[in-house]
């Protein structure tokens, strides 16, 4: 398990592609004031930096981390490593977890960097440093938990599909959880009773990945989420991750090639 993790972590590290998202985050920090009328309202500089940095982190996580997950999963199957590791005695579960840890680490890197940049350069002077740090820390935690199900799904699917289809499925899952839920919520409140019932069902099933998006809280200075709701949101997202990972491990099960 440790060998698989080290081997592919080193593979991703040596590809150096992960530097690009970090560069984008720095560029977002520098470029944000240029996109807002900060001359008229200097306070906008801070909120625009925070907004653009966090949006970039989400963008990189959804696209880059999703792609890395798909690539890692498909690499095992296409390069015959599944058989090699399985015959060495490594169980499907441990194999899956060794790979799954890598996109989680990448998300820690991207969202962690976004938080550090936001705390350092996106803080409105009216907000205290500890308060601002807590909001960003909360945002990091829920963002990592919110992105975990997609990575789990993509790795599992890559065992059945190839890189591009599994990446696309992960992308669609993310878009559905992050934005599709908003559309479903609107349908729930609509006039059509039958549609509302169906929308209710979809709303109940979820996944409500939009809970992980703290963008408004960060941009509009709403402050940290109280401890109890934050705990429930984290618990919900962690539960979604566990359920999706459990289903994905089934997809990851070794299959004979013929």
């Amino acid at each position, binding site marked *: 398990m440790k*060998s698989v993790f*080290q081997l592919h972590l080193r593979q991703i590290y*040596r590809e150096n592609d992960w530097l690009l998202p970090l560069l984008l985050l720095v560029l977002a920090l520098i470029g944000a004031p240029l996109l807002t009328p900060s001359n008229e309202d200097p306070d906008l500089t801070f909120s625009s930096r925070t907004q653009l940095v966090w949006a970039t982190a989400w963008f990189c996580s959804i696209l880059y981390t999703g792609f890395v997950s798909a690539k890692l999963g498909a690499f095992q199957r296409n390069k015959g*490593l599944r058989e*090699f590791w*399985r*015959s*060495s005695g490594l169980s499907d579960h441990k194999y899956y977890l060794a790979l799954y840890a890598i996109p989680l680490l990448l998300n820690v890197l991207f969202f962690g960097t976004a938080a550090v940049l936001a705390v350092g350069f996106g803080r409105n002077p009216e907000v205290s440093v500890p308060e601002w740090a807590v909001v960003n820390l909360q945002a990091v935690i829920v963002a990592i938990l919110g992105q975990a199900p997609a990575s789990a799904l993509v790795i599992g699917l890559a065992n059945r599909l190839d890189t591009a289809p599994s990446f696309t499925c992960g992308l669609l899952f993310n878009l559905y959880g992050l934005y599709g839920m908003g559309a479903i919520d609107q349908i729930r409140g609509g006039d059509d009773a039958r549609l509302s019932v169906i929308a209710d069902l979809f709303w109940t099933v979820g996944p409500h990945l939009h809970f992980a998006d703290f963008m408004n809280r960060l941009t509009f200075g709403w402050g940290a989420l109280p401890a109890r709701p934050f705990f429930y949101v984290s618990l919900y997202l962690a539960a979604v991750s566990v359920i999706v990972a459990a289903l994905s491990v089934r997809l990851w099960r070794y299959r004979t090639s013929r």
Partner: protein
Amino acid sequence: MSLLVPNGLQIGYRKRVVATVKGEFAFNPAEITLLLGLNGAGKTTLMKTISGLIPPVEGKLPATRALYLSEEVDFPPNLSPREITACLARTRSERAQANRWLCTLQVEDRAYGKLSKGNRHKARLVFAQLTALSRRMPIVGLDEPFSGLDFVAREQLIRDWSDRRREAPWHLLISIHPAEIPFVPHQMIVVAQGEIRPVPVHTSWSELREMLTADPATPLACS
């Protein structure tokens, strides 16, 4: 610990039987078995069955661990063989041993994807041996390990394996083209005509050819 392959064991995919074991044989520690057969006869299927990658169609194999290195397996192309062995080894001594193997086989230390086909193959064999060493595998199955190797590497491997028959704890199961038997192994198994049977290690080429084609006089007919 030996693995006894029982008489009557049927191997194949799902319900499709590829070959049946005729006569018992065992894989004993620190020995070498050569697996001979024409293309598609069932050599790889037997190796996969022994490795637990596919279940037997009929009969049971005692539970064991057997590392299987297929011809197709590939490692991250952007890492050098030494970087890969650093990840696969569990101790410093294993890592040092793997590096010695790389050195002996003259595998270049540059990105695995940039190595020549032969060097990649040599590196793969080292990775398999290292994995077997670090995980204490009782059996190691190598599918066509000599294909694509130059004669220097081939001779080195033969020398190495012949030496290690006394030291290495694992049983080496090697599938090979019947015309290329490189040394006298402890055991030879022929997979042909839907049957898997042990044959004496000094069986001549003409006898082997007869077993493999079921017709020594004429070339294989096309239907």
